[in-house]
């Protein structure tokens, strides 16, 4: 393009724009730079891009920096190939337009240079998106985002590319974070509390799945028993973002309170569906505002439709929305006015959802006759706080009827996805690290999962007939527990907030390590005045005074380890009378709450489950050991427990005893949850295993390990008191109360 001999080509380069940008002697320097770039030999495309973009950059930031750009293009091109060199001048122009400041522009160039060295393969995709990126991020945020991508890939170029092409959803998430958008997780707790305060409404709130379409992720969505909340509303920052989340939830809650039956879709057209939904939105909002007039102040600021303008369907719908909530809004459109009049005429019937259907249907017909364009594919409900209305309609979809199951499915899919995610992008330098590590562990364990157990120990069994122990009679086989959906555990905690809160407050009162005043001591820091007076009184009346006249303050502290042993024999599969849950479900719930309490107290604890299949296969499942954290893995193993086989409890008590004996705490407690009498298929004498278990408990007691049993079978008193002693067991007669009783019992046992 520029030939060494060509005066004419230089003339061609010096377009009027270039002459303007590079006055006088600058023009010569710029031409020299162009020639230099050409001599580097990156190809014509790079040179052309530079010669075209650099005058515009010079216009904005001055000629110097535009000329210096050549060297930067060179370094980037060497590292990241020609395509990058070709894109850089245009990206630089975008950056110049966005930043409009030489210092910022230079630091932006620095970032790009470093980025080209770190992730040459991704430079092109980032440069292509520069305008959009810089629209959301300033330079330092941009750098932070770039580094997040580089680090999260951990040196794997393919993963990096996935990140920077936005194929990895993490990229978007980090972008939102860096751009300072408030994400729902920051506000989740307070907003949930808000719903409870207003309506006592407790609904699980989840993020829409990352695979959902962009369109589906822009608005809040709900269905029976579940709210899907976008992680962020782009464009809303700070307090505004908080308000839009709050407004969304209040609106969805209004649906939960006042939209009862779903509307049948039948043969309605998309436009009619949109209008009926709109009227329904207004109806539930008005009902909610009757109860809580202040909600109008929450919702109204989002209605920004103007009273005139183009008569396209989305605009008319937004105007109607506003007309229905804003008493001061006057609309020019006859259709909007008609909608408003119809709606308010029937104020007394607002309680009934049928009016939405009626008024909406009518307005839909009118709008249809006005031949207004409506494209259901691009239509997004306005204002942004309103939901996508999917929850209002019955799509005759058999899958959606059993929501419980659908949600379970969703949960398990999510768990699997998290495992996958882990292989692609753990961002080790960010705060999510801990969580990622947990998932890492979970992923590892599922690989290592095996169906065969490993025999680990043999224990004697006590024969009451001979009065002796039979050596090496039982074999403990440790099985690797199967991981289950960890979401199940979270849901248990979610579902029982009352108990969780009660436990938490009990924990904190137990944790504070309250000082305790010890009175009437033989020695201490100060005189116990009551005791002194007593002593003086005693002396006066001529009796020997009690020498315990001192008092002292002491801080209570806990020094205790607990092993929780769960019976998962066949009988634990039984349904609890009058409930849908099985005994095992309740055991699991109880253990989750208990583990919550123990983790909160910081007591070292272990969880194991057991069942047996004859004496040579007493199965022992380690859910969590003393030295392991109570993390996602432990929770998923707990969720995956399944019942089966028999209850040979003595051997298990001995095995657990060995574990506990290794703990150096002052008090060691074995807490057994069992639902039936000890039994096994190779034992016919019912007394035999009971006596053996009793012997095992006594052996543990001799080693200073306390055993406590929670019996779940009514009428188990006889054998439970035989095995554990009269004071060392409780009988839970109403099984459904186990989840709340177990943690309380534990706290009482150990306080």
């Amino acid at each position, binding site marked *: 393009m520029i030939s060494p001999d060509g005066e004419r080509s230089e003339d061609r380069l010096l377009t009027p724009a270039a002459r303007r940008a590079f006055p006088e002697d600058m023009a010569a320097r710029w031409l020299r730079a162009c020639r230099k770039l050409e001599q580097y030999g990156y190809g014509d495309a790079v040179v052309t891009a530079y010669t075209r973009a650099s005058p515009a950059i010079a216009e904005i930031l001055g000629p110097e920096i535009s000329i210096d750009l050549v060297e930067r293009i060179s370094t980037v091109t060497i590292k990241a190939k020609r395509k990058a060199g070709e894109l850089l001048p245009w990206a630089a122009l975008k950056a110049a337009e966005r930043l409009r400041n030489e210092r910022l522009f230079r630091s932006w160039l620095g970032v790009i240079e470093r980025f080209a060295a770190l992730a040459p393969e991704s430079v092109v995709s980032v440069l292509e998106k520069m305008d959009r990126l810089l629209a959301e991020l300033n330079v330092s945020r941009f750098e932070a985002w770039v580094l997040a991508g580089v680090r999260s890939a951990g040196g794997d170029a393919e993963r990096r590319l996935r990140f920077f092409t936005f194929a990895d959803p993490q990229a978007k998430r980090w972008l939102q974070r860096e751009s300072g958008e408030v994400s729902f997780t920051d506000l989740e*707790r307070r907003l*949930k*509390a808000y719903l409870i305060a207003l*309506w006592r409404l*407790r609904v699980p709130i989840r993020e829409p799945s990352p695979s959902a379409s962009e369109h589906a992720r822009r608005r809040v969505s709900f269905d029976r028993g579940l709210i899907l909340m976008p992680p962020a509303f782009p464009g809303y920052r700070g307090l505004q973002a908080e308000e839009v989340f709050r407004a969304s939830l209040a609106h969805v809650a209004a649906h939960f309170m006042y939209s009862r039956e779903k509307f049948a879709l039948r043969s309605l057209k998309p436009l009619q569906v949109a209008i009926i939904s709109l009227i329904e939105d207004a109806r539930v909002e008005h009902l909610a505002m009757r109860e809580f007039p202040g909600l109008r102040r929450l919702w109204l600021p989002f209605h920004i439709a103007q009273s005139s303008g183009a008569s396209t369907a989305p605009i008319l719908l937004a105007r109607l929305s506003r007309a229905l909530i804003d008493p001061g809004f006057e609309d020019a459109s006859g259709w909007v006015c008609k909608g408003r009049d119809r709606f308010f005429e029937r104020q007394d019937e607002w309680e009934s959802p049928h009016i939405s259907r009626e008024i909406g249907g009518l307005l839909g017909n009118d709008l249809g006759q006005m031949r207004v364009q409506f494209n259901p594919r691009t239509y997004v409900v306005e204002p942004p706080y309103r939901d996508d209305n999917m929850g209002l309609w019955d799509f005759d979809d058999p899958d959606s009827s059993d929501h419980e199951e659908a949600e379970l499915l969703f949960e398990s899919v999510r768990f699997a996805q998290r495992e996958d995610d882990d292989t692609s992008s753990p961002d080790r330098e960010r705060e999510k690290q801990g969580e990622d590590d947990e998932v890492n562990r979970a992923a590892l364990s599922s690989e290592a999962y095996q169906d065969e157990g490993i025999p680990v120990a043999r224990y004697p069994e006590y024969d009451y007939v001979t009065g002796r122990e039979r050596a090496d009679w039982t074999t403990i086989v440790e099985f690797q527990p199967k991981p289950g959906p960890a979401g199940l555990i979270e849901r248990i905690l979610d579902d029982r907030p*009352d108990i969780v*809160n009660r436990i938490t407050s*009990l924990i904190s009162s137990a944790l504070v390590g309250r000082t305790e005043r010890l009175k009437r001591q033989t020695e201490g820091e100060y005189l116990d005045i009551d005791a002194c*007076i007593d002593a003086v009184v005693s002396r006066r009346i001529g009796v020997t005074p009690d020498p315990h006249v001192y008092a002292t303050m002491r801080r209570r502290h806990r020094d205790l380890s607990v092993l929780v042993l769960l019976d998962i024999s066949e009988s634990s599969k039984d349904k609890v009378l009058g409930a849908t849950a099985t005994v095992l479900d309740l055991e699991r719930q109880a253990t989750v709450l208990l583990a919550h309490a123990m983790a909160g107290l910081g007591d070292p604890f272990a969880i194991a489950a057991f069942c047996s299949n004859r004496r040579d296969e007493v199965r022992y499942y380690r859910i969590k050991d003393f030295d392991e954290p109570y993390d996602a893995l432990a929770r998923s193993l707990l969720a995956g427990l399944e019942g089966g086989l028999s209850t040979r409890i003595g051997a298990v008590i001995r095995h657990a005893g060995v574990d506990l004996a290794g703990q150096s705490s002052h008090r060691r407690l074995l807490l057994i949850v069992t639902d039936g009498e000890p039994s096994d298929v190779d034992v016919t004498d019912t007394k035999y295993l009971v006596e053996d278990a009793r012997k095992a408990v006594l052996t543990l007691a001799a080693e200073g390990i306390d055993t406590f049993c929670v019996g779940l079978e009514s009428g188990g008193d006889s054998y439970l008191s035989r095995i554990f002693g009269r004071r060392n067991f409780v009988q839970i007669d109403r099984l459904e109360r186990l989840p709340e009783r177990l943690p309380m019992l534990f*706290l009482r046992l150990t306080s």
Partner: protein
Amino acid sequence: MNLDEYRIDQEPYYRAIGNEITLFEAAFADRMPMMLKGPTGSGKTRFIEYMAWKLGKPLLTVSCHEDMTASDLVGRFLLDAEGTVWNDGPLTLATRYGGICYLDEIVEARQDTTVVIHSLTDDRRILPLEKKNEVIKAHRDLQIVISYNPGYQSVLKDLKESTKQRFGAIDFGYPPTDIEGEIVAHESGVDKKAAAQLVNIALRSRNLKGHGLDEGASTRMLIHAGQLIVRGIPLGEACQVALVLPITDDPDMRDALTSAIAACA
């Protein structure tokens, strides 16, 4: 000695919710020990003051706490220049001279302390003072009344069965909304409408009990908010001062409450 200084001269304001006044009068006729259960600020103490006034009996109130010993109730020897003197505790005073002995928040006291009332709360009606080697036969006007908040602490702090079963009980919940509004309006002087708003706000906070709050806003708190409103403070701020800030330090709960208050008015 008489307990005139413990008598209540002026009628305290008490708005009956059910037939608790009749019930208490009947119990008093037989000097049956009574237990008033209910959350804080629900009117237990006001009720017993009202009853003491209505029945014309002295009222001896003891606020129980963890470090309280039996001597704090029964009395103790104190030293003076001459040697030791016995000093009657409030329980002993009420037993000797007749009156209602009201043990407020009894669960706060240790269990070994509360057993001293056992001999007074069954048909023996005596109080042995071991240290003085004396047994007091209860005055015919002695009635033991305890109050008790069956709240969060009840697992670790609970009454012994043997204590519980000596008492009859009256349950004090929060009053129904219209009556609560009436009480708030009377006690604070706000108008009916503002009182109704305050009660509505209180219901929101009570919904959060167990979901981040240990206890919802009590009637007493509403009265405080009402008093601020009467002094010209706007509702929102009055609720911040009297309700949101005292009730929790958790920023999320404060935010939820504040927003709920905004929704109510």
